[in-house]
């Protein structure tokens, strides 16, 4: 029973982890909380739904969703955030702007796609697997594995590639990076593209897992994903994964031992406790904030 609930929590945690890395990526470079990430996640899911409805097939839907959502992330940066940065606007201005963007996206989805819950095809269905006496569904296992692979790829991009090096350099000191010949603007745009892609991957996987898509799916999941990012130390990618799993397991155990009404409350209590002991999160670097 306990093991089963912990595994359920880990699976749920991967959902949060997928969303959390999107927050972490942008925060790592820009020190900006991209509060529109939840809505962008819902946008990704709806793009996939659109492609599925057009009968382009699942792989095409996946690619279409990733491209469209990546472009949306990029567009958001180019059109709204880049001009604000150019004018040296305070960080709070950018934060309010992205909250605004979040509502614009959500309402646009509501206008174009209706506000009801819509069914989404199941991604994986090849029976259940038994591990240590616990039955796991194929959807759970595949989601866990794909999320894991995706997060590893993301880590490799950030840590091993040239563009990743540029991203890290811009994070350390954007002025110096600029002087060294790194086009920081391009790096930032790429980061937003990457974070949009993350949102799309998360959107498609989560929709397939729960077999449904709806406009407000990003609100609750976005907040939990954000908590997971903070818990793991925002700006640290593997921290997001651990953070997501901690939040997920806390929720599953709360439901198991206290009942479904305690789900969110307990998740946030755990968040507070961790932050009380380690204010910068589990893997966060100290004095990270130099706003």
């Amino acid at each position, binding site marked *: 029973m306990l093991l089963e609930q912990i595994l359920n929590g880990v699976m749920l945690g991967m959902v949060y982890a997928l969303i959390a890395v999107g927050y972490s990526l942008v925060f790592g470079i820009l020190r900006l909380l991209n509060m529109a990430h939840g809505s962008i996640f819902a946008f990704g899911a709806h793009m996939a739904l659109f492609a599925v409805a057009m009968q382009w097939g699942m792989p095409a839907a996946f690619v279409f969703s990733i491209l469209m959502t990546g472009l949306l992330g990029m567009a958001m940066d180019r059109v709204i955030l880049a001009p604000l940065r150019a004018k040296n606007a305070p960080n709070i201005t950018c934060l309010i702007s992205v909250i605004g963007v979040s509502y614009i996206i959500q309402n646009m989805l509501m206008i174009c796609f209706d506000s009801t*819950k819509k069914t989404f095809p199941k991604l994986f269905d090849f029976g259940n697997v038994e591990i240590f006496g616990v039955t796991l569904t194929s959807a759970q296992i595949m989601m866990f594995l794909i999320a894991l692979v995706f997060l590893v790829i993301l880590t490799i991009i950030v840590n091993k590639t040239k563009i990743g090096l540029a991203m890290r350099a811009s994070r350390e000191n954007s002025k110096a990076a600029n002087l060294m010949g790194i086009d920081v603007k391009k790096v930032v745009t790429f980061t937003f593209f990457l974070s949009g892609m993350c949102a799309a991957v998360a959107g498609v996987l989560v929709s397939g897992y729960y077999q449904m898509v*709806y406009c407000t799916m990003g609100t609750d999941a976005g907040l939990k994903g954000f908590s997971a990012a903070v818990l793991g130390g925002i700006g640290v990618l593997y921290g997001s994964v651990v953070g997501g799993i901690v939040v997920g397991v806390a929720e599953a155990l709360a439901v198991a031992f206290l009942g*479904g009404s305690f789900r969110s409350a307990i998740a946030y209590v755990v968040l507070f406790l961790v932050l009380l002991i380690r204010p910068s999160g589990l893997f966060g670097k100290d004095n990270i904030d130099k706003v």
Partner: protein
Amino acid sequence: MKKKSMCLLLTLVMAASILTGCGDKKSESTQAEAGSSSKDADTTQAADNSKEDITLAFVGPQTGDNAEYGKSMKTAAQIAVDEWNEKGGVIGRKIKLVDFDDANSSEQAASIAEKIVGDSSISAVLGHFSSGVGMTAGEVYQESGIALINGSAAHMDFAKVGDCIFRNNAIYTTDANTMLQIMDYLGVKKIGTINPNNDAGVAVTTAIQDMLERYGDQYSGELVLAELYEDGTVDFTATVAKFQQAGVEAIYSSGPYSATAPFIQQYREKDKDVKFVMSAACFSQEFIELAGKDANGVVLGTSFFYESEDPAIQSFAKKFEEAYGSNPSTFAAQVYDATNAILYAIEAGNSAERADIVKNLPNTDFQGVTGKITFDEEGNCLKEQVLLEIEDGKYVEIPDVLKSQADWEAEHIK
């Protein structure tokens, strides 16, 4: 370049706000119209005999999770109004339906209720979806003496708000009895329940526990686990594991289809044999679409079934299908009957005055599409239910299983 893109963005945002603005304006203008006609009515007076249209208000969620319920209930109310208008209206006047969106939120419902009672052209109110939301708004209607008939609230205390509040839906006590009769029929011993943690969900859980406490020896089933969940939950895996641990054989869920469908899907993945018993909230095509093949085998009790041979039901189902594109749900049918109840009350009193409608509603007595429509002293309409099962994505009636609560009590309680 930067300025240009900024300009472009601002234009886009403005264009967007104009577009969305249009949608709102439509309903605003109908409200404004309603408002201006009320002023006319005040000045010309002779309210009853004037040839002004009679205005009824429909309130329900048109956006949000429960939008499908609200939209289908509104369609049903409109069908009833159109039928009367085709016959020449009521007491020689045409009928007009104005609609409001409360998004099934108590806050919005309260402010809409204030708006409605302040608009003297509105004679009576239909709708509100959830019990809690309807009860918040109900206080406002009761205070100003305008009648509300609801077609979907099941909380035991809903109609107790006052003499202006009526409802045409099975109350939770009836639902609990229906559910336990179904469990007997399925031959299950261990029952679990899952309900949303809100007014309605807590009330139905209590109703079931009360029923078992009073008549427990009359039922073969036993409640082993009663679970509540937060509104908006989509991940039920932890709850499912809990039910499996408790070894339940059948689960009852009273929540809306948008929460019940993912619950069933996540349960079915782990357990193919468990049985699901739902409330009438899951008697809707959208439920089958959302739950897919996992909906097969689900059983539920409802006061309305569109495949009945009754010509009135056939005619209503056909009109609804034309207007809405799917078969009517229980709630839609109950709102259709509720609309007729108001219009009959206006006809009986030969008056569309708010007070006269309230006075005449308790004498309602006609055969509707959801059974005989009469109201008891509290304002509840007793409902008889039939058992439906979902087979291959279709609702199929299983006749002669369910008894009305009165019959059941007569048979079991000596």
